[in-house]
C-alpha cells in the first residue's frame, strides 16, 4: 500500500465518512422541515443543544458521549416545546418566541462553556466541529488492506472512530424512522385536517419530527459543528425543492444531496487549498456550507423545470410565438386592405413595435415557407395565409364575443382580443363559441358562418 493511500485511509477517510453520514442524517429530517415550512426550527435546535451538551459534560465530569447526546437531545426538544408554549400562552409571534428561547439557551451554553475552566471542550469545535481531527489507525498489515476476509476478521471496525459509527447509526435510524412513517408524515404535513379525521395525530407526528431533528442536530453537532448542521438540514432540502415535485423523491434526493454536499465540502476544505498552492486547509464545515449554497444556486439557475433558465426559456418561447403570430396577422390585414405589394420591414415594425426581434421572426417565418420577400416588401405564401387566417379569425371572434357576451364597448376590445387570440389548448387555437360573420368593426371574420363553431 502506498503511503499516500495510507494517509488517505487514516486521516481523510474517517472525516469523509463522518461528514457524509452527517449529511444524510441531517438532510432527511431537514427536507421534511423545508416541506413543512419550519426550516428555522433546525436553526433554533442546532443553537439550543449547546447547553445540554455542555451541561451533561459538566454534571457527569466525563466525556461520556452517550450522556452528552442525551443532554443535548433533551435541550433541543426543550427549546421547541418552550417556544411553542410561549407562543400558545402569550400569543407571541412564532419567530419571536423561538428567537428568544434559543438565543437565551445558547448564551447559557456559552457561559457554561467558558466559566468551567477545566473543560477541554473547545469553543471552536462548537462552531466548526472537528471533522478534520477525526483519525483512524486500523491495526493491520499494509499488504492485505482490501481483502474482505481480513476486514471482517481482525476487528479493524472496532477501532473505527466513535463519531463515524454514531453518525452511521443515526443516519440509518433516521432513514428507517422516516421510511416507516413516511405516509403518516406526509399526510400530517400536507393535510392535518384529513390526517385528524383518519385517526392520525398531526401533533404527535410533528413532535416525532422534532425528536428526529434534535437527534440529527446532536450527533452531527459534535462531529461537524453548528454551522454545518443548519446548512446540511436546509441546503439539500431547498435544492431538492427546485428539482422535484414529489415528496418521496424530495426526501431521497435531499439525502443524496446531503451526502454529496459533505463529500464535496470535505474535498473543497481539505484538499482544494493545497491544490491551489495554499499551505493551510480551510475549515471543512464552512467549505461544506459554501458547497451547499453553490448547489442551491446551480439548481436555482439550471433546474430543468423550476430553474430560472428553464423558466426564462419558456417565457422567451411564448414571446417568440406571439411575435410570429403578430407578424402573420399584420401581413394578412395588409393584404386584406388591398396592399398587394406587401409590407416592408419598417412598416411592420411600426405595426408591431419590436425592432430586431421582428427581423428574426420574419427570417424564421421565411425559412418555414410562410412568408416570402417580394419587391415591395414581405408577403404571405399560401401556407402562411392559411395560418394567418386562423389567427385573425380567432381575434375577430374574440372581439365579437367580448362585445356581445361581456358587453364591452367596440373600441375597447382590440387589446384584450390581441392577447386572447394566442391562447392554445391541447395544441389547438382556442376560439370562443359565438356566431357571426362580421366583427364589431364590420370586418369579415375569415371562414365564419352564421352558426357558432364547435
Amino acid at each position, binding site marked *: 500500500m502506498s503511503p499516500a493511500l495510507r494517509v488517505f485511509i487514516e486521516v481523510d477517510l474517517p472525516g469523509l465518512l463522518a461528514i457524509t453520514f452527517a449529511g444524510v442524517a441531517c438532510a432527511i429530517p431537514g427536507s421534511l422541515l423545508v416541506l413543512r415550512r419550519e426550516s428555522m426550527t433546525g436553526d433554533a435546535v442546532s443553537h439550543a443543544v449547546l447547553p445540554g451538551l455542555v451541561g451533561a459534560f459538566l454534571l457527569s465530569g466525563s466525556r461520556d458521549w452517550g450522556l452528552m447526546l442525551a443532554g443535548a437531545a433533551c435541550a433541543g426538544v426543550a427549546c421547541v416545546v418552550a417556544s411553542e408554549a410561549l407562543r400558545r400562552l402569550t400569543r407571541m409571534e412564532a419567530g419571536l418566541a423561538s428567537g428568544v428561547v434559543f438565543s437565551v439557551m445558547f448564551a447559557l451554553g456559552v457561559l457554561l462553556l467558558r466559566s468551567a475552566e477545566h473543560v477541554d471542550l473547545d469553543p471552536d469545535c462548537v462552531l466548526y466541529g472537528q471533522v478534520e481531527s477525526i483519525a483512524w489507525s486500523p491495526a493491520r498489515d499494509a499488504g492485505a488492506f482490501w481483502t474482505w476476509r481480513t476486514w471482517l476478521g481482525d476487528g479493524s471496525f472496532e477501532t473505527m472512530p466513535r463519531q463515524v459509527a454514531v453518525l452511521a447509526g443515526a443516519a440509518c435510524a433516521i432513514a428507517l424512522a422516516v421510511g416507516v412513517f413516511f405516509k403518516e408524515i406526509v399526510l400530517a404535513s400536507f393535510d392535518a385536517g384529513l390526517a385528524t379525521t383518519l385517526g392520525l395525530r398531526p401533533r404527535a407526528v410533528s413532535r416525532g419530527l422534532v425528536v428526529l431533528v434534535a437527534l440529527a442536530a446532536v450527533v452531527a453537532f459534535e462531529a461537524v459543528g453548528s454551522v454545518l448542521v443548519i446548512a446540511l438540514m436546509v441546503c439539500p432540502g431547498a435544492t431538492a425543492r427546485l428539482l422535484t415535485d414529489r415528496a418521496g423523491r424530495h426526501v431521497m434526493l435531499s439525502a443524496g444531496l446531503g451526502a454529496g454536499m459533505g463529500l464535496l465540502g470535505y474535498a473543497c476544505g481539505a484538499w482544494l487549498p493545497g491544490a491551489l498552492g495554499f499551505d493551510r486547509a480551510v475549515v471543512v464545515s464552512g467549505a461544506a456550507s459554501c458547497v451547499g449554497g453553490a448547489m442551491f444556486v446551480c439548481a436555482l439557475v439550471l433546474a430543468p423545470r*423550476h430553474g430560472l433558465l428553464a423558466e426564462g426559456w419558456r417565457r422567451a418561447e411564448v414571446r417568440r410565438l406571439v411575435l410570429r403570430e403578430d407578424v402573420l396577422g399584420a401581413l394578412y390585414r395588409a393584404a386584406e386592405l388591398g396592399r398587394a405589394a406587401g409590407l416592408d420591414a419598417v412598416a411592420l415594425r411600426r405595426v408591431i413595435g419590436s425592432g430586431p426581434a421582428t427581423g428574426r421572426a420574419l427570417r424564421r417565418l421565411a425559412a418555414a415557407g410562410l412568408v416570402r420577400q417580394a419587391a415591395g416588401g414581405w408577403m404571405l405564401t399560401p401556407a402562411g395565409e392559411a395560418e394567418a387566417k386562423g389567427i385573425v379569425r380567432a381575434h375577430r371572434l374574440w372581439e365579437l364575443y367580448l362585445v356581445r357576451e361581456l358587453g364591452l364597448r367596440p373600441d375597447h376590445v382590440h387589446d384584450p382580443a390581441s392577447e386572447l387570440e394566442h391562447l392554445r389548448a391541447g395544441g389547438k387555437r382556442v376560439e370562443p363559441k359565438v356566431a357571426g360573420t362580421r366583427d364589431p368593426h364590420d370586418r369579415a371574420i375569415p371562414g365564419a358562418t352564421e352558426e357558432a363553431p364547435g
Partner: protein
Amino acid sequence: MTGALANFDLGALARALTLRAGHNTQVVMAGAAMLGLAAGVVGAFAMLRGRALLADVVSHSTLPGVGAAFMVGVAMGGEGRSFVPLLVGACATGLLGALAVQGITRVSRVRDDAAMALVLSVFFGAGTVLLSVIQGLGTGREGGLKTFIYGQTATMLEGDARRLGAIALLACAVVVVLFKEFRLLCFDRALARAQGWPVAMLDGALIGLVVVVLAAGLPAVGVLLVVALLVIPAGAARFWSDRLSVIVPLAGGAGMAGAYAGAGVSSLAPGLPAGAMIVLCLGGVFVLSALGAPARGLGAVWWRGTRARRRIALDHVLRAGSEGAGGSAGPVAAAAIGGACGWSGARTMLVLAWARLRGLARTRAGAVDLTARGRSEAARVMRNHLLWEAYLVRYAEMAPSHVHFAADLIEHVLGAEVVRELERSLEAEEPAGAPAEGAGEADAARHGAGGTA
C-alpha cells in the same frame, strides 16, 4: 461551574453597577447600554413588522463582511481591525443576506423559512472560511477577529463607546422622525400604500436600521448572539402594553438595562463572556416581564382566568342550590351540587368554602343552604340565563329546546349594561307579557321533566 463564577462577589457587582469600578468598566458599560438602547428601539419595530427571524439571518450574514473588510484592510497595509471599515463590511454583507432572502422567495418556489435558513448558514459558512483563510495568512493581527463570534467587551475603548452612542442617537432620531410612518408600516401596509407612502423605501429603512445596529453590536456581543439584543427587549416590552408609543421606549429601556447589567456582571471576572452575560441579563428581564407584567404577562393572564373560573363555579353553586331545592328554601346536599356540576369531591369542598367566605351559602352537616344574598344572586344568574334564552328564541330564531347550552355559557358574562339592553328589547317587542317568565316556564317545565325522569 467552579471556575469564574466561584469567586463571584456581590460587592464588586454593586460597585460595577453603580459606576464605581474604574474607568475602563464605566466605558464598557456605557457603550453596552447605548447599544442596548439602539437595539431595543429598532427591535420593537422589527418585531412588529415580523422581521425577528430576518434579523437572525442578517446577524449571521455579517460575518463574511467582517472577514472581507479585514482582508482588504490588511492588503492596503492598514491595521485591519478598525471599527469603521469592519462596520461597513458587516453592513454590506448583512444587507446582501436580507436581499438574498427576498430575491430567493421572489424568483423561486422556495419559501421564506427555507430561504432564511439557507442564506444564514451559507453566509455564515462563507464567513468561517474567510476567517480560517485569514488565520492561514499569518498577519499576526487576526487575533481580534475571533471576538466577533462570541463577543468581547473588554477591548472596548472610549472611542468605540462614543461611536455606539452616536449609533444609538441616530437610531432614536430616525425612529422619532419616522415614528408615524413606521407605525403604519407595521400595522397596515395596505393603507400605507393606498395613502401613497413609499412602503418599499420605509421597509428598506427599517431593515437598514436593523443591519446597522446588528453590525455595531458584533464586537461586543458576537455574531451568534447579537440578534438577541434586538429580539428579547422587544418581546419583553410587548408584555407590558398594547400601545406602540409605550412599547418602543420600554424596549429601549429594557435593552439598555439588560446590556448595562450584563456588561457589569461580565466585568467582574475575566472568564465571563460578555455577549452571553448580556443576553442572559436580557433573558432575565424577559422572564420577569413574561411572568409579572400586568397587561399580558402569564401571571396576569392566569389570575384573570382563575378569577373568571371561580366566579363561574360560584354561579353553578348558586344555580344548583336554588334549583335543587325545587324553588323552596330547603338545603341541598353538597354531594348533589358536586355531582350536578361534574366536580370532584375536593373541588366541591373548595368552591363551597369560597361561597361560604363570600357569604352566599351556609353548610350544615353536608347540606348547603343559600343565604338571602345567595338567593338574590342566584335569581340574578337565573334571570340572565332566561333572558338570554328568550333573546335567542326571539331574535336568533333558535328552537326553545336548543338554547339551554348557549345560555349556560353566556349567563356568567352578561354585564349589567347588556342585561338592561336585553330587558328593553324584549319588553319593547312584547309589552303585555313578561317574556323572560314565558321562557322561564318552558325552562322550568323541562327541568322538572328531567327531574322526574
